[in-house]
């Protein structure tokens, strides 16, 4: 095995870089799409997909590396989006200043949710994050004029970069691609750092990690906070792209869809979130499904992926390719390594 599955050993420079390369090439190709004058509909879809992918990279650090599953990721995106909208309305803060502020807000929210939730451990965490997601939606709905209640908030600020207006779809698309690239590189840097190795140690065996002197609790909360930073940035991009946000976009069901995307793509590989986000966004277009049918297809995909390809689609394809190329059956140990949730006992 080379890169991908055995990231643990990929710490040393060149090998690690090689795992980033495919993603960079794909993103470079994606950045060239506007040359073929795509339709506005295509660009909007691609922008939404890209915004999701940024959040998914955060989720992949949490789930793929640390082995914690959050059902409140959309809530963290929502905190970012609302932070951007409220800052713009009350303080006239623009897009670029809102980015760090929203990332900070989401990270802080993640910490507030994470400390009690992770304290209760294991299976309860999933339910706690779900409950916090629902609570946030209820609070936003009952927040009166401050949060715009059920109708939500409008956000009509222009996005400018070096004096150029970025609101144009093609420009916004390129900007989102740049953000996705940053998110991919950041998540790659985390995976290949000693921090990433610590997180994986926690994923594989919490007690063993603790016995090595790793502060498991603090690192889990840390990973949750990191996922919050990604989510916050994705929230700002979403708020400025849509120009209108409402509580229902960030309740627990959107969170389920985010979890679904990251798992369909594969949470552990750097290609996973990209593949998951793009696939889920474009599948209905390609297969010409209406929203209801496409949701059924997502659900079936998720179940099939979990039952048959625990690495996610990309992981499965990579494994199948390798098996076909080398022509020898997989030994049991690799199979075990490749299964998510191994660490969850």
């Amino acid at each position, binding site marked *: 095995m080379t890169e991908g599955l055995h990231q643990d050993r990929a710490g040393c420079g060149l090998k690690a870089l090689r795992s980033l390369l495919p993603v960079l090439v794909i993103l470079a190709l994606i950045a060239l799409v506007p040359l073929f004058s795509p339709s506005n509909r295509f660009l909007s879809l691609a922008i939404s997909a890209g915004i999701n992918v940024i959040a998914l990279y955060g989720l992949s650090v949490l789930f793929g590396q640390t082995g914690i*599953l959050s059902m409140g990721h959309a809530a963290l995106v929502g905190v970012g989006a609302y932070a951007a909208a409220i800052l713009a309305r009350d303080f006239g803060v623009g897009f670029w200043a809102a980015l760090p502020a929203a990332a900070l807000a989401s990270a802080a929210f993640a910490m507030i949710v994470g400390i009690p939730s992770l304290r209760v451990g294991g*299976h309860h965490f999933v339910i706690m994050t779900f409950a916090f997601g629902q*609570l946030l939606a209820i609070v936003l709905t009952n927040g009166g004029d401050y949060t715009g209640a059920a109708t939500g908030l409008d956000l009509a600020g222009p996005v400018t970069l070096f004096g150029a207006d970025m609101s144009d779809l093609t420009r916004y698309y390129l900007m989102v691609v740049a953000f996705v690239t940053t998110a991919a590189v950041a998540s790659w840097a985390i995976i290949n750092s000693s921090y990433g190795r610590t997180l994986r140690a926690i994923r594989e065996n919490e007690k063993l990690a603790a016995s090595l002197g790793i502060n498991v609790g603090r690192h889990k909360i840390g990973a949750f906070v990191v996922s919050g930073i990604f989510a916050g940035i994705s929230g700002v991009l979403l708020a400025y792209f849509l120009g209108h946000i409402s509580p229902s976009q960030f309740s627990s069901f959107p969170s389920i*869809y985010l979890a679904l995307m990251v798992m369909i793509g594969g949470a552990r590989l750097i290609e996973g979130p990209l593949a998951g986000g793009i696939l889920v966004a474009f599948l209905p277009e390609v297969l010409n499904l209406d929203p209801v*049918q496409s*949701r*059924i297809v997502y659900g079936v995909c998720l179940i099939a992926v*979990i039952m048959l390809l*625990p690495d996610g689609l990309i992981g499965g394809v990579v494994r199948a390719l390798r098996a076909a190329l080398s022509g020898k059956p997989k030994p049991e140990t690799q199979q075990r390594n490749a299964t998510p949730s191994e660490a969850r006992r």
Partner: protein
Amino acid sequence: MDIFIQQILNGLSIASVITLIAIGVTLIFGLTGIINFAHGEFLMIGGIVTWLAVSAGLGFPLAVVLAILAVGLMGYILERGLFRFTLERPTNGFIVSLGLIVVLQHVVVLFWNPNQKSIPRPLTTVWEVGGVRIASVRVMVIAITIAVVALSFRMITASRYGRALRASVEDRDTAALMGIPVRRYITGVFVLGSALAGLGGALLIALFPITPFTGGTMVMKGFAVALIGGLGNIYGAVAAGLILGIVEGFSAGYGFSQWTDAYSFALMILVLIVRPHGLFGGTSGPRMAS
């Protein structure tokens, strides 16, 4: 005072439905460690089956039986077809249940549109007792729930099957070594839990209109109740259901109705912070052979 009693009654009738979910949730978790979020969709399907049966001209009692049978059968099929393969990795079982939520909801939307569905109230009598208006349909829901819960208790505490079940919840491996067919009990618990959810759905639609998305909120409340009572602990689930029912009833009666949904979550978070194993103590899932 009359408003007070009425609100408590309202709260209790909803709490009945939630308790029916919570028992299934808590039993399935206790035995398999699977957090089955799709349980709320089982409830929703139970409601839809009742609606279909009543719309087809069947009486309500028959519709309830149909709902129980249909959802029980669905639980059996899903356990045999899907959850059986996730027993070694409960997290995968949880993820499968997420997929099921999406699939079940939208299959219902696909065939019977996303609008609200309601049936005429099976009992329309309203008793006036000392100025308190008591809707008989709510009393019926509470009575049926009490009967069913009492029956389940009796089964679990007094019969040898119940004892075997409790032993399996306590320690799956040792129970298996004692000759208890644990796998079959797991299937049984899935069917029982699903059947209770089916009944819950039938009772819910007798009280309120439901939509294909009703399951999501209900299952969260079911989990809140199960967690507050202690996962795996049926007594705890029933007691916590009562508490939640009374809290929700009060809040609706005294003008905080827009926050009703928040109480269960807030209560749950609070309880978990103070007592991570719930008010009445529960299991932290089956010990897995590693």
